[in-house]
């Protein structure tokens, strides 16, 4: 089974996770830039983070046979901090990089005017750079947040078929599907979606334009949730082709809209002692 996790924050995960993900069938992932738990206080923190998503993290992933791409953006939460907003001026020089396959995660957290501005500006940046966009829907007041998100998308230069609306659930899936956007579902141990509910949503709405992700990060989350959903789908009678569509072909098609997806993994030339992540004596 081949799996593409279209939304996972590997910066916050260990090499054990990479190893377990590869064993479970994960061969490609997209790491969207996001909030680190501890608020940033300067643009420079973002730049080091972006550099890491274009440098060290793909190197770590390659050592475990996983192709790593990223989505870059100012996240919704920090769009409210005037010390962070100027990172928008730095984004254009990052959005031209080979491994950047989307603008994201953008969207709403608390639905403030500052978030309105950042969302609209970054949808425009995506259109300017011929990139699709990964749009997060808020955890609080999700239904209203989705409507406002879709309104801003409709008003933007980016066509809905280049937008992935993420963290959907039973209450928001229909409206998101009707909008023409791609549909993302995050499967978590306690919050967001779970495996069985995911099976029910796919049974009702079908696999077209649906992507399932673990959104694993520094919180309680599980980087193997993609595989658990695949297993639940097979157990519920979905075909291997359905599973391949949701967990591989759909994310390849969506991020492939960037023209920059490169799924071949070149393992660094390491001859002994495993790899540099073992650190030797450093």
């Amino acid at each position, binding site marked *: 089974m081949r799996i593409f996790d279209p939304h996972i924050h590997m910066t916050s995960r260990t090499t054990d996770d990479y190893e377990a993900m590869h064993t479970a069938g994960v061969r490609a992932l997209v790491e969207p830039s996001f909030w680190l738990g501890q608020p940033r206080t300067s643009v420079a923190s973002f730049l080091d983070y972006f550099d890491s998503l274009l440098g*060290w993290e793909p*190197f770590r992933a390659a050592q475990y046979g996983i192709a790593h791409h990223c989505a870059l953006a100012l996240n919704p939460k920090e769009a409210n901090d005037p010390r962070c907003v100027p990172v928008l001026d730095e984004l*254009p020089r990052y959005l031209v990089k*080979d491994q950047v396959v989307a603008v994201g995660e953008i969207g709403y957290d608390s639905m403030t005017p500052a978030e309105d501005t950042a969302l609209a500006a970054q949808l425009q940046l995506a259109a300017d750079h011929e990139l699709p966009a990964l749009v997060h829907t808020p955890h609080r007041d999700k239904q209203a947040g989705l409507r406002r998100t879709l309104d801003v998308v409709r008003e933007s230069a980016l066509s809905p078929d280049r937008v992935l609306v993420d963290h959907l659930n039973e209450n928001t899936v229909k409206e998101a599907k009707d909008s023409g956007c791609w549909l993302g579902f995050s499967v978590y141990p306690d919050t967001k979606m779970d495996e069985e509910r995911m099976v029910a949503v796919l049974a009702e709405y079908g696999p077209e334009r649906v992507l399932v992700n673990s959104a694993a990060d520094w919180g309680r989350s599980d980087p193997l949730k993609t595989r658990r959903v695949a297993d639940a789908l097979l157990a519920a009678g979905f075909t291997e082709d359905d599973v391949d569509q949701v967990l591989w072909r759909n994310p390849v098609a969506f991020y492939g809209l960037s023209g920059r997806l490169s799924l071949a993994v070149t393992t*660094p*030339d390491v001859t*002994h002692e495993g790899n*540099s*992540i073992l650190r030797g*004596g450093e």
Partner: protein
Amino acid sequence: MNHHPHASHGSTANHPAEPTLAALHARLNTSLAPPARAWLDQALDEAADHPGTHGPISVWELRIAEAARRCGPEHADAARVLLLHAAHADPDALARVYRQGTAAERRAVLHALPHLVPGPDALPLVEDALRTNDTRLVAAALGPYAARHLDAHTWRHAVLKCLFTGVPVDVVADLAPRAHADAELARMLGDYARERTAADRPVPEDLHRVLALTEPTAAPAGPCGTDRTSGKES
């Protein structure tokens, strides 16, 4: 591309890992598909016509950023080195591309150094790469430019880092002449071997090979590249 008259200036840096710019260009011309070759020709012309830095990002810097998706990841290093040369990138421009680059772009800048920078001005980039644990950057940092300019202490630590991180010492330019009769490097290697043995871990094969090169009685230090098959007698 006859209007890139400096394309053979890298010939003094004739290391197996660092082909001349003319050879790089010839190889790309034969291996790139026609659309990629046309893209590269145009990008090189643009860079030659508008060298230097302009605004937040110059056109040739954009071309460097997109080289892998245009030429294929396997040809990106060579394309980027040629673009840096065509744009007459000086140490300041190279530092900017490195600092603003992905790991792949940084690697290309490191490969370009022996072709573009005659003096030690770009050493901070080599030192930055040697601080990382990304073996692709560590390997690229240890080409002919490092052989020429890196001070003894930093160079010894770089060799030791190769052994630690599994970078084959074959990538180290001028390994034999620089290691020759280096008693301090020999001591560091010996200490490392003892540490590995005490921990019941294998001693890297390459360590014995470098250790043999440090012997004052080792084969005379030839030009780089001639040491590739020697020193395996351990």
